[in-house]
């Protein structure tokens, strides 16, 4: 079998839209183009019907009721609505005062969680940012230790986007329910890949995104629990009162239909896909760790997403590694491309040294990734690491028994 280059191994960034999704979406642009808010003609009714079908498809993937799904523009908006909306609704004191309530989240959350939390801090809320363990795990015990009398909200991602570590979500949810605290999870990387049941897993608010699960970009959803307990939110975007007043704005019907179809396909294919991708992940990890020394697989050894691996290659810099493997699309833990020169804050929060954080690759596989592609990528990565180590003064020092952490480097 011939391999088509470039190879896409960055499915945690985004996925190709499934052709079956595209097929479902297209008529919504041309034939079924109505505004679901038009209550007095058939164009509106048909569009509304399509949206309600999608709402059920999303709800079914989560074990939720259709009424509990709010369509948004993506996981970033869902996170903003969940976190700010819950904080404003359950605030203990009015705007302008301090001590308005306590929120717990973690240092290695996505920026779309961290930045809303930072804003709330400026608005009089207190936020605790939990430091993950070295494997990236956030446990129930860690959340419990941070709980206070005035804790109103906990936001912990289901699985981390850079390292794939799966947090103790059902356990943290149970804790929150015991303490009457609202529990939000950013499930962008989890949903559609792993079985989800918001009731079994004790989740009150859950963010998801269309384009991570073979659906379109620009659409996502927020699950908002309606029973046991009923969770209420203050709307962030105001206007025409769509989505039960929680998210005003004409519905993105093509996007929503695409998200619904994507969810339906994930529900059907998840079990097979998970096993297949896990086998591929184990294959690439084994191949790379067998061929190279000073390699570290980041994240939790077992509690980790099946399709994603984050590997640090000692003494090799991430960006040059990407350059040497340019026909393979992956992500680097090094942010050398930005002006900051800061490596990934996620890897840093795990206590991984800056040198190894600069030397990491995130490889994420998807629905169409083949064994041949993974083999090809592994061979290329191994070849590139060897080439760059031949160039690396740090690898020489390592081989001469010099501890590079003991050298007084001149940071510039």
């Amino acid at each position, binding site marked *: 079998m011939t391999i088509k280059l470039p190879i896409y191994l960055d499915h945690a960034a985004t996925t190709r839209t499934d052709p079956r999704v595209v097929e479902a979406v297209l008529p919504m642009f041309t034939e079924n183009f109505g505004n679901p808010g038009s209550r007095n003609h058939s164009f509106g009714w048909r569009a509304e019907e399509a949206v309600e079908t999608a709402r059920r498809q999303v709800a079914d993937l989560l074990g939720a009721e259709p009424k509990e799904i709010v369509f948004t523009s993506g996981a970033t908006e869902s996170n903003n609505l969940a976190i700010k909306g819950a904080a404003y609704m359950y605030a203990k004191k009015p705007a302008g005062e301090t001590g308005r309530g306590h929120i717990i989240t973690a240092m290695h959350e996505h920026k779309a969680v961290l930045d809303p939390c930072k804003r709330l801090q400026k608005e009089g809320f207190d936020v605790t940012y939990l430091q993950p363990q070295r494997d990236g795990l956030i446990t129930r015990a860690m959340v419990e230790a941070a709980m206070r009398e005035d804790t109103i909200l906990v936001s912990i991602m289901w699985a981390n986007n850079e390292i794939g570590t799966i947090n103790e979500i059902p356990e943290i949810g149970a804790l929150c329910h015991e303490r009457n605290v609202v529990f939000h999870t950013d499930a962008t990387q989890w949903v559609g890949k792993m079985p989800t049941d918001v009731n079994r897993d004790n989740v009150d608010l859950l963010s998801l995104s269309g384009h991570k699960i073979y659906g379109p970009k620009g659409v996502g959803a927020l699950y908002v629990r309606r029973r046991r307990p009923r969770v209420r939110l203050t709307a962030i975007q105001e206007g025409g009162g769509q989505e039960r007043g929680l998210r005003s704005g004409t519905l993105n019907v093509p996007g929503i239909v695409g998200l619904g179809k994507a969810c339906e396909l994930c529900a059907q294919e998840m079990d097979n896909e998970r096993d297949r991708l896990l086998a591929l992940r184990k294959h690439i990890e084994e191949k790379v760790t067998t061929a190279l020394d000073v390699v570290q697989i980041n994240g939790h050894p077992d509690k980790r997403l099946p399709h994603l691996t984050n590997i640090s290659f000692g003494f090799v810099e991430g960006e*040059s590694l990407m350059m040497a493997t340019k026909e393979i699309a992956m992500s680097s833990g090094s942010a050398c491309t930005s002006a900051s020169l800061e490596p990934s804050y996620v890897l840093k929060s795990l206590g991984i040294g*800056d040198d190894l954080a600069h030397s990491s690759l995130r490889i994420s596989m998807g629905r169409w990734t083949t064994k041949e592609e993974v083999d090809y990528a592994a061979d290329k990565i191994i070849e590139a690491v060897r080439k760059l180590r031949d160039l690396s*003064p740090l690898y020489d020092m390592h081989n001469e028994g010099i501890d*590079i952490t003991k050298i007084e*480097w001149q940071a510039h």
Partner: protein
Amino acid sequence: MAYSDKVIEHYERPRNVGTFGTQKEIKERRDIGVGLVGAPECGDVMQLQIKVDDSGRIEDAKFKCFGCGSAIASSSLATEWLKGKTLDEGLSIKNTQIVEELSLPPVKIHCSVLAEDAIRAAINDYKTKNGITADTKAHAH
């Protein structure tokens, strides 16, 4: 990010990769000057070694680099330029010349600064080893 053709060319066929010996051996050789600049946590470390002949001319130069493509290209270029130069001529190489030659974008200018620092450090190391007054003018970071 898009790299210039020259960066890609140096990256794919780096010139003068290597060392004149182990760290320990190099320390004892008076004809070799070494510059080791940067820091692993910043994602760039350059090691530049020059071999100076009896007449004070740089007869050979070698580098190793841990860093991005632009850092590798900058150090590769530096070795090319150093060969055949006197120490003073070597010291006159400026980072802006490297920026120009490799068409480095603004976020990569630090790579050229690092290369200039490496040149300076290697020449000064040679001078110190041989009892010549070193040029103390270093880059402020």
